[in-house]
């Protein structure tokens, strides 16, 4: 036992020695200093120095460490060789591995709130890197150095979601023409990862997320409609639908997917209306179909059939 401990401590000592030696050897000679960078990259430098990364008041910030070289690594050789993209310098390009690029950012940001679950993120699993969405030097105005504004940034990859938001019934995420954007993708999702590995929603369940804005649906109700407290997505699409209220299918077919007996068992066709032949081909399902009587479909305080 004592021998093993000795070996372990020896390995640890060697490791620490190498680390310290590496830092000593690193020295200033390999670093060119941010002023040298500015000579050729003035625009990038100016943007950096004005940004949050340039604030010396923030402990651990690049401005308090090696400036540009905090992210790009030592640049003396790059200067000596006359510059050039990627010549003896780290650049955020596809030539560098996703791990190498992420590690530059995570060296500081792993401690940042909201990034602590990056290791769980679906984006990380698909080798999406920080620089796919963020750019320190060419970001849009605003916070977080995003390359484009939401939702356009997200739609760049999530084309099917863009198509869904174009449908007539959708959450107000693209209403930016006159007025402001009401919701953002990041209102519901954390692209940096959450405990919901696949969809990265900002809640422990789908319903918990929906109730954040739709608190009136939260209940509990005296009379529950069983699928409702379990998952809103049995009946509703998330991003967009051709049917109002983001319904996955149009009423009455949606209700008839589960319910049988009595009037749910009737086919409401082009010639079979709720009101018989009297209103055939006209107004046949009373506009909102089943919901005209079962108005409390999410739950009721009075009636198990949700009609009071």
């Amino acid at each position, binding site marked *: 036992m004592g021998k093993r401990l000795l070996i372990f401590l020896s390995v640890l000592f060697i490791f620490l020695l190498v680390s310290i030696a590496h830092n000593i050897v690193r020295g200033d000679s390999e670093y060119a200093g941010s002023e040298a960078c500015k000579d050729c990259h003035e625009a990038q430098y100016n943007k950096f120095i004005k940004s949050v990364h340039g604030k010396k*008041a923030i402990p651990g910030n690049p401005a308090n460490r090696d400036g540009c070289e905090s992210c790009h690594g030592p640049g003396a050789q790059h200067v000596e060789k006359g510059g050039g993209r990627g010549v003896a310098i780290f650049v955020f390009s596809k030539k560098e591995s996703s791990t190498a690029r992420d590690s530059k950012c995570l060296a500081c940001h792993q401690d940042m709130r909201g990034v602590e679950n990056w290791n769980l993120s679906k984006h990380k699993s698909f080798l999406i890197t920080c620089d796919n969405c963020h750019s320190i030097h060419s970001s849009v105005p605003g916070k977080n150095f995003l390359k484009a504004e939401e939702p356009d940034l997200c739609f760049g990859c999530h084309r099917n979601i863009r198509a869904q938001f174009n449908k007539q019934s959708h959450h107000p995420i693209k209403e930016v023409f*006159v007025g*402001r954007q009401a919701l953002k993708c990041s209102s519901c999702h954390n692209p940096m990862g959450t405990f919901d590995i696949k969809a990265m929603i900002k809640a422990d369940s789908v319903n918990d997320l929906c109730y954040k804005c739709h*608190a009136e649906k939260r*209940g509990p*109700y005296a009379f*529950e409609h069983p699928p409702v*407290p379990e998952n809103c997505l049995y009946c509703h699409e998330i991003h967009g639908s051709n049917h109002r209220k983001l319904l996955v299918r149009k009423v009455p077919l949606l209700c008839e997917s589960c319910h049988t007996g009595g009037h749910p068992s009737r*086919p409401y*066709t082009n010639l079979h209306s709720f009101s018989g032949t009297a209103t055939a081909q006209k107004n046949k399902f009373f506009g909102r179909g089943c919901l005209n009587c079962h108005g409390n479909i999410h739950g009721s305080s009075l009636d198990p059939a949700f009609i009071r």
Partner: protein
Amino acid sequence: MKAKIMIVAMMICLVPLSNALSQDNKTIEGEVGLTGVWIDVHGKEGGKAKFTEYRDLREDGAVFGRARLNLDTDKYFINLNVGDFAYDTQYYMVDGGMWGKFKFDLFYDEIPHNITFDARTPFLGAGHDTLVGTPNPNFPLWNTFDYSILRHQYGGGFKVDVIRPFFFDVSFERENRDGIKPTGAPQTFSSSSVAFELPEPVEYVTNNLKVSAGYSKKPLFLSLNYIHSDFNNSNSALFLPPNFVAPNAFSLPPDNTYDKGAFKGAVSLPFNSRFSTNMGFARGRSETSIVSLIGSGYTGKVDNINYDFMLSSNPVRFLDLKAYYKYYKRFNKSDDPTGVADIFLNYKIATYGAELGLRLPQNFYLSGGYKYVKTEREKKGEDDPEEILPFNMDNIFFVDLKWSGPDFLEAKVGYEIFDRDAHYRTAYSYGNPFKRFSYAEQNRNTVKAILDIFPLENLNLGLEYRYKNTDYSDTIFGLRRDKRHEFDINADYAIGKIAKVYGYGDYGWIRFNQWQIRSGLPWDGDQWDKTWGYGIGAEVYVIPKKLTLIFQHDYLKSNGSVDFALNDGLFVVGNGLGAASGANNDNIDISRWDDYTLYSFRIKAVYNFTKSLAAMIGYAYERFRYSDAQLDGYQFFVPAGTGNGAFLTGAYKDQSYRANLVFGGVSYKF
């Protein structure tokens, strides 16, 4: 009281502003802008509401102002962003703080949701909790009101950075929702009752408080979180006129509170690994006075418990591993001493899984995994064997392959199998041919293929295809199949410094197949949703940095239909369907099922007089054509002839519109 707290908080938070102004090394940037819009809308009440669904563009003309101010020094910063003053989309936001010390934000914003203008009701009192009057069929004389809801949100937050690696965040927001939304109730409890569409008053206030504190420094992250939310509805019920049978009241969402405490933690481990955990306990309560109408002493109480454990590891460069266990439980502890409402839903979901990612030669990345989900449901107090809910066991396998070999290309393909087994716990429910899709056995196959090409530095092209097929293999009656295809494409191309053009195209179709049985005779319906659309746009830099022309055109068409196939016996007169004479399987299909066309066109010219001063002028055209079998030939009053009668309000009626918008504005940056 809370408003006073907000004002005090705002005053405290503005301290950095005065300090910032006294700093030498400061940057002040800002922008003020004014946009005038002339609007010409053609449409009926529903169309005008649809046009302005989430916007405030009702008047013929409108002038929108906005302002932004960013003040930044080495120590302090403050940003103000305000706009749409006095409109239903107005917003006021301020955030600021001391770099590395603290941050704060305050906001107020509004957003409307317009559904239908000038809806009608035979009753008096729309928008209030009591409807009075005797319904009469003379609908032109009915009272009018708007189906519209306005959300006002305001709040703020405060984050302390100075105590790093410890942190403390607090935020509060209040949301007021006011307006009217459509609901409905039958006059009696008979299935042949007259149906009444009703204006439901919306007067909600929701308060949300979040507090979070913890420690974050590699290798450790620890966080304690508390959430309190309370929802208050000014109206417990919509009281109905005497022509409705007792209880002539329609219950409205009850007041509720929600409290949640959670712990989140993560620790870095050897071999580039990280262990993360999330544990939470939440309690929701509801109160309603309306249940006294049925003599119940109901008190609502629901507990939610969740805990998650996750381990991720990247021990060697080419290998990513992830393993997890998740548990979520809902336990309805509501109490109803009278037993009227004593059936409450409980469920628990246990999930475990593992994922593996392998970096392969030639820039291939192969990932895959397995997930098992067990869902156990119980309706407490339920003894009807027909209503005993089944358990589900889901086995999910997935694999993805990504290739990013050449610089100009990235390709992804993925496949997932979802296999759900349903364990019905009574002989009746097992043998029942009606199996609800939410719980029934299902086999789902999902395929996706994505290609991103960058053949030139200034050209990006993306293609995507997704296929999903869900078979509810054990269901005879109910939803049996959900099949969907999606094709999406987008591209953008920069023509030097002259212009940038971009476009997209989408096509998708969804088919739902369901079977039903009527009078012992089966029928089935296939609902089809077909949607296709495209958009093209361009930015032309006519005079670089001076004059830019922006053009955008979008088109979307939805074509829905339902194909019915009825057993011949269902066409026999007297079977209870109320079939029109001459009905047969060739003429009963529905061809208009939420059909619509969205067309928009926008052109805008932006001229920069100086680096600071810019002007903009433009024109937009929007058109929405809607056609649907349920709403065409709309009648406010449906007489009770051979079937049910109805008094309707016009919700969602006549949503088509076309609109011309001419807009112009100036902005000044400093």
